[in-house]
């Protein structure tokens, strides 16, 4: 059955329209929510966008804040590697958007279809929303075309956005026969969550060691070495002889029929279960809207206001940004959300923005009970973000894991509570 674009938009709009805003957006056609006073539209309700939406309302309750987020609930990527090993459940990482609604944020469970910077509109469904300022927090999208055989990603299990994919991969891992081979592929930098693939390696290795001692884990890393917390991960992996870590092994081809991945040097590696983490770029909406830099991959921004260097009145935050000496982490996105909300509030009131530095705390679990961490503090110097210091925990420990749990409880509430 052929579906025209118009029909598709109509059906998806109708489906998405149900239950939005208690019925005031029954159909998203034309100017379906006319703008009254000052309005900020936030695209994406992840770590950056959810935080920005909440803090805009805290900063100036006279600003109407509309958050566009297709997912009905927030699911945390941090801690989701623990779902693979069975240490945590996905529901324990799932949080409602009701907290944002209580702050007066209008949450629309619909994707932004397009941005029209010249006339300050975001297209949603068959209609549009007008904005005074737009905050785009689109996260990452996958570059499947760089992996021959990956198609549009139909059969790729990346589990790099927490949700159904996480559950699928957990099921594949937990149901694989003892003795089978698990292959994990790591894309070249830059990608979301630099230590993420290595935390995942630790979790899978811990699970296999505990439950399937005859199985092994082959890690094909496109990078020359472990990208983040290198020494700490190396130390942790001494407990996991089942890890076969291969640096500088960029996977360029996958054959799901033969169950083989091929590296750029032509090495063929057989898998029983494959977790292919594809190369990444900024969320499609940002690149489609002309917010990408020269690389057409990530979005350059002002270091104080996070306003795009490509479009006025549009701010980009989170993993999609480039040019700042910060990792693509949830904590950094949370920081950017707070800073941008403050800057936007000031700009809309005709006041100059106040320079505010971001911060980063990033925990990685190396077993079911021990974690490691890296912390980055920054300052603003000549309107640029500059790192003051990076500090690592000296070793893995249950105490750091306890702090990780505390951090998660706190920051989830800071975003959505």
């Amino acid at each position: 059955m052929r579906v025209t674009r118009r029909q598709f938009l109509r059906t998806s709009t109708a489906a998405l329209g149900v239950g939005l805003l208690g019925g005031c957006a029954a159909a998203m056609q034309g100017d379906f929510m006319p703008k009254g006073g000052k309005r900020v539209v936030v695209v994406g309700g992840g770590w950056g966008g959810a935080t920005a939406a909440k803090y805009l309302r805290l900063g100036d309750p006279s600003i109407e804040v509309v958050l566009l987020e297709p997912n009905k609930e927030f699911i945390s990527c941090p801690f989701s590697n623990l779902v693979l090993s069975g240490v945590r459940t996905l529901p324990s990482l799932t949080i409602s958007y009701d907290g944002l609604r209580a702050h007066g944020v209008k949450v629309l469970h619909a994707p932004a279809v397009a941005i029209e910077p010249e006339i300050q509109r975001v297209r949603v469904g068959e209609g549009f929303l007008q904005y005074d300022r737009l905050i785009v927090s689109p996260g990452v999208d996958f570059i499947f075309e760089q992996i021959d055989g990956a198609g549009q990603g139909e059969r790729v299990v990346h589990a790099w956005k927490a949700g159904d994919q996480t559950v699928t991969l957990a099921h594949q891992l937990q149901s694989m026969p003892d003795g089978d081979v698990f292959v994990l592929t790591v894309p070249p930098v830059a990608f979301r969550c630099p230590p993420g693939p290595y935390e995942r390696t630790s979790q899978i290795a811990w699970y296999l060691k505990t439950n399937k001692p005859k199985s092994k884990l082959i890690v094909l890393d496109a990078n020359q070495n472990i990208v983040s917390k290198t020494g700490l991960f190396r130390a942790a992996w001494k407990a996991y002889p089942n890890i076969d870590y291969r640096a500088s092994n960029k996977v360029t081809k996958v054959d799901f029929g033969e169950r083989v991945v091929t590296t750029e040097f032509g090495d063929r590696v057989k898998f029983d279960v494959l977790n292919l983490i594809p190369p990444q770029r900024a969320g499609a909406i940002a690149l489609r809207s002309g917010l990408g830099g020269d690389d057409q991959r990530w979005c350059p921004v002002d270091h104080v206001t996070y306003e795009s260097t490509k479009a006025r009145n549009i701010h980009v935050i989170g993993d999609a940004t480039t040019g700042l000496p910060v990792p693509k982490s949830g904590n950094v996105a949370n920081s950017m959300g707070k800073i941008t909300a403050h800057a936007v509030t000031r700009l809309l009131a005709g006041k100059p923005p106040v320079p505010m530095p971001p911060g980063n705390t990033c925990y990685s679990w190396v077993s079911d009970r021990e974690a490691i961490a890296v912390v980055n503090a920054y300052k603003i110097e000549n309107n640029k973000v500059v790192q003051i210091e990076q500090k690592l925990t000296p070793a893995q420990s249950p105490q750091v894991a306890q702090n990780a749990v505390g951090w998660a409880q706190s920051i989830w509430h800071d975003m959505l509570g």
Partner: protein
Amino acid sequence: MTTNLTRLSMAVVALASVVLAAGVAVAGPLDHPGYVKSATCSACHGFAGASRSDTMPVLAGMDAAYIKKALQDYASGKRVSPEMEPFAKQALQLGVDDVAGYFASQKKAPTPVTADPAAVARGRTAAATCAGCHGADGKGDPSKQIPDLRGQPPGYLRNQMMLFKADRRSPGDANLKAIKTLMKTVPDQTFADLAAYYSSQR
């Protein structure tokens, strides 16, 4: 006359500034001048220092001098914490008095972490030994840098007692000699009870 008028108008201007400053201070939760220097902290310590977790201390309403000393000790590495050291340096660069003042000016927000009533009861008995300095309910005495323990998360309190006992919090700090000596006499299992008791106090 002119001088008097000038004085008067200056006084009016000064008064207006005070009123304006006060107006700004109550305008909204992000308008406190210390907020922009403390925004990073809320990721772990909760908005305005109202910690939601078991391990991160509540900063809201904490004595400013105590916060300042803690930040200085973290920054110098005297109080060892890989997580806090970089952020303490950030706070020092931004203005430690503004950061400390921001949290001190917030309304106290007791931990939402609830404690087992039996542990609270045991802790109440055990706390007699702490009352000499911290008072019966744990109120402390800011003038002597003795912190208010009431409503702090139990996990945080327990961790600090363990650090004191092992002399891993600010080794060599003369002000902490008494608490460390005392903590060495307390069995580990009692720490959870003491923590439960003080966290439940308001």
